[in-house]
């Protein structure tokens, strides 16, 4: 069994992260190139949506990652509070802008699909509204970190906000079942298996893997930066004491 908990040590994390990042980067680039090729050139037109279905290959993986990034942020925040681990708090902090970006993409590409398919860019149905709230939660979380100067207090407050916001995650996931939404119910992550054809499912999953790889790469870059920033703060504190 690898000493995975040793990754909670910032120096060992930096070492590990620098070793893994290039490979993840290459794999992500390859997946992304394949995914875009499949999405635009190989996947067939949908018999109802026509070529507009191609928007789904960006929209759906973005929405998956919007939720996944929040889950990472919430678990890291909980770990930070429970074990008082600075690296866990910094992981949550590093994940937030990535999650916010994917949420923004899910909303924007959803609107671009909604206009031709539904005849409207936006409706205030439960799915769209709860994802918009997710976006605001990310922004609030980021703003909270910036608003509080004391680092330990900022970490704690932001972690509590992230954990309170977790209640929104099942609401997003099940909104399409609980309420009569214009947004369709799940067609991939279903108890009885995916309900879409493999010609459309394959590009979706490849793009999903590419976005997941992107998340790992950018998270590791942002987290390394946060660890270095922490070293700078420590060093300055030591020096100011003379």
């Amino acid at each position, binding site marked *: 069994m690898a000493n995975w908990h040793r990754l909670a040590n910032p*120096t060992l994390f*930096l070492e590990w992260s*620098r070793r893994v990042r290039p490979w993840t980067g290459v794999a992500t680039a390859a997946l992304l190139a394949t995914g*875009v090729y499949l999405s*635009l050139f190989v996947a067939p*037109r949908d018999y109802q949506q*026509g*070529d*507009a279905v*191609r*928007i789904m290959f*960006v*929209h759906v993986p*973005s929405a998956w990652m919007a939720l996944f990034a929040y889950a990472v942020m919430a678990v890291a925040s909980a770990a930070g509070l429970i074990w008082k681990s600075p690296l866990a708090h910094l992981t949550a902090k590093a994940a937030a*802008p*990535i999650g916010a*970006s994917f949420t*923004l*993409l899910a909303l*924007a*590409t959803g609107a*671009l*699909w909604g*206009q*031709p398919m539904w005849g409207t860019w936006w409706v205030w149905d439960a799915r769209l509204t709860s994802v918009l709230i997710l976006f605001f939660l990310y922004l609030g979380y980021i703003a909270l970190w910036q608003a509080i100067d004391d680092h330990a207090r900022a970490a704690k407050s932001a972690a509590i906000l992230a954990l309170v916001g977790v209640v929104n995650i099942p609401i997003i996931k099940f909104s399409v079942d609980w309420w009569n939404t214009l947004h369709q119910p799940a067609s991939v992550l279903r108890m009885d298996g995916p309900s879409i054809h493999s010609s459309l499912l394959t590009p979706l999953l490849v793009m999903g893997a590419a976005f997941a790889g*992107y998340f790992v*790469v*950018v998270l590791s*870059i*942002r987290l*390394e*930066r946060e660890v*270095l*920033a922490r*070293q*700078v703060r420590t*060093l*300055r504190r*030591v*020096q100011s004491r003379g």
Partner: protein
Amino acid sequence: MESVSEFLEMGGYAPFVWPAFAIAAAVLTLLLAWSLRDLRRERNLLDSLPGRRSETRPAEAGDDP
């Protein structure tokens, strides 16, 4: 075999399909670039602080052991 212009038209959905891919490319590229820039700045800052042998860069040829 469909022509290039037919492909670009996206069955009449070009005004929606291409912006969706363009926005995704723009947002993901900007976030990556922004994150790399911040990391580089932080490395330089840490390197510039006195009293600290840099641990911020992987060892390079010519570095002291």
